């Protein structure tokens, strides 16, 4: 059984691509055949963060336009077995992705035995973001602890409930998960950021995890090696927790308060 998971947010720059790279890597490390698709046409980010930009020959749009076979465009990760990347193209044509083409490729990936198809959405709530979510079975909504990000996430949750294949065909609702990223307990304490509790109250969806604000993220994306691969960092631990939780294991929530093992951890664990 394949699962199509969209990583989406509405607001830009909140950590979708970082999350896509880390979660795809983490799931693949657990032995599941996984592909991360970059839906951010025109920008090409995921391949950089995953360190395979030099190996891009064909891309998602080439495959949709039948200029290349899917196998030619898929990049196999050099570090992690079972991990593949389908890069975005640098074409300026925002309409390059159409539902038929995307649907055909997702179907083909399922036929190839991919268990997890991770869709890295572009920012916004327009066509590009809607394409990325259209075929999703599940959604990880990436949110930063600030009002504008929460509002955008709320809008995206509305779209997930209305503008997706499942919604249109009357299928079961897309399962949604909240991932709070760039979280800084210190700033929450100072009242400069919304708390986990605030965000949960506003969005009302289950918490998948909290990723702390950390310099390790920038360093690892500069290296082209997802943070999750260096288990010594907070971020890696946080993303590992998220992966295990996502795959069904119980993990207490961490990184919510300055000291570890927090009350919130037990509340939402």
């Amino acid at each position, binding site marked *: 059984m394949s699962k199509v998971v969209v990583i989406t947010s509405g607001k830009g720059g909140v950590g979708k691509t970082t999350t896509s790279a880390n979660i795809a890597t983490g799931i693949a490390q657990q032995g599941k055949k996984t592909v991360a698709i970059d839906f951010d046409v025109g920008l090409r980010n995921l391949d950089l963060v995953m360190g395979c930009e030099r190996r891009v020959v064909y891309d998602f749009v080439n495959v949709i336009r039948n200029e290349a076979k899917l196998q030619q465009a898929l990049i196999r990760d050099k570090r992690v077995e079972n991990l593949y990347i389908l890069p975005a193209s640098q074409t300026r044509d925002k309409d390059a992705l159409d539902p038929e083409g995307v649907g055909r490729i997702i179907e083909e990936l399922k036929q190839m035995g991919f268990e997890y198809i991770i869709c890295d959405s572009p920012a916004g*709530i327009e066509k590009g973001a809607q394409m990325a979510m259209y075929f999703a079975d599940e959604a990880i909504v990436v949110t930063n602890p600030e009002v504008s990000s929460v*509002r*955008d996430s*709320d*809008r995206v*949750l*509305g*779209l997930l*409930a*209305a503008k997706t294949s499942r*919604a249109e065909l*009357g299928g*079961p*609702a897309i399962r949604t998960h909240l991932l709070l990223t760039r979280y800084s307990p210190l700033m929450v304490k100072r009242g400069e950021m919304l708390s986990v509790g605030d965000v949960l109250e*506003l969005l*009302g969806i289950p918490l998948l995890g909290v990723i702390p604000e950390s310099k390790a993220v920038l360093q690892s994306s500069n290296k082209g090696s997802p943070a999750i691969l260096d288990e010594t960092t907070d971020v890696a631990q946080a993303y590992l927790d998220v992966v295990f939780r996502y795959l069904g294991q119980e993990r207490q929530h961490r990184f919510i308060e300055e000291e570890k093992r927090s009350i919130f951890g037990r509340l939402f664990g």
Partner: protein
Amino acid sequence: MSSPPAVALPLSGAAASGSEASARTSRRQAFDLKGTMASLTVLRLRSTDLALVERQLRVKIAQLPHLFLDAPVLVDLGALGDDAAALAFGELVRALRSCKLVPIAVANVPDGLRGPVTDAGLGVWQPPALGRARGAGDAEPADAASTGPLSAQTGATETPATETPATETPGPEVLRAGASAPAGPSAGAPSVRAPHAGPMVINKPVRGGQIVYAKNNDLVVLAPVNSGAQVIADGHVHIYAPLRGRAVAGAQGLAGARIFCQKLEAELVAISGAYIMAEEIPAQFHGRAVQIFLEGGECRIAAL
């Protein structure tokens, strides 16, 4: 799953249940022609000063964007009388589209404007359908030509077409056609009071950008109405959760309609056209369980 219904405009309903579809469904048929029209906003022009029209429209749209953005609109020229002939129709269409409205047809088109109307790709609305929509039969009242057949229930206060619009005078009037009009042979009294319909019940959060409209009905929401969302009912609105977005009760003019909510954090509350914006809500009601109702034509808030 019970996602909110497709966006339906409350300012709605030239519900012309015209001739039953002449095309009976047969296996081979590629489509049905239905003589019904779901819901439609009628823009009844009262001025040919298009700058004024556009300016006032933008104000209206800014107040209730989700009701109007991308809404199909029927333009009624009936109230313009002889002035209609002088209307720069192409300009009007451009103005409407720049306001993100979608003009689809025009009613009460003087002969001289038929060309511009069809050139602009709009339909010419046929009077018989309007007559039915009003429930007045096919025969128009003698004075219909001056006010147009699409009178709303607020028609009594209409100003003459020739009046120069002062700042106070509404330019374009967005009508709620069909509000009081029987939608067909079965329609009787306003169905807000229909005993068996039961209220519309929503049990999932209403998210930013979503609109829920309980037409001719009460609305019960059992989950938060979030910032940027809108819940609208022709009857009462009950929200057993925080109201962070906008709520509109009595959307078609029912003055007795009320809004009840468990936790008031609203961006706007409106009843029958009167409204209160977030910043006008007295601090003592913030976060409180309240009801909102009309008193002397204005919205009042009271703790529950």
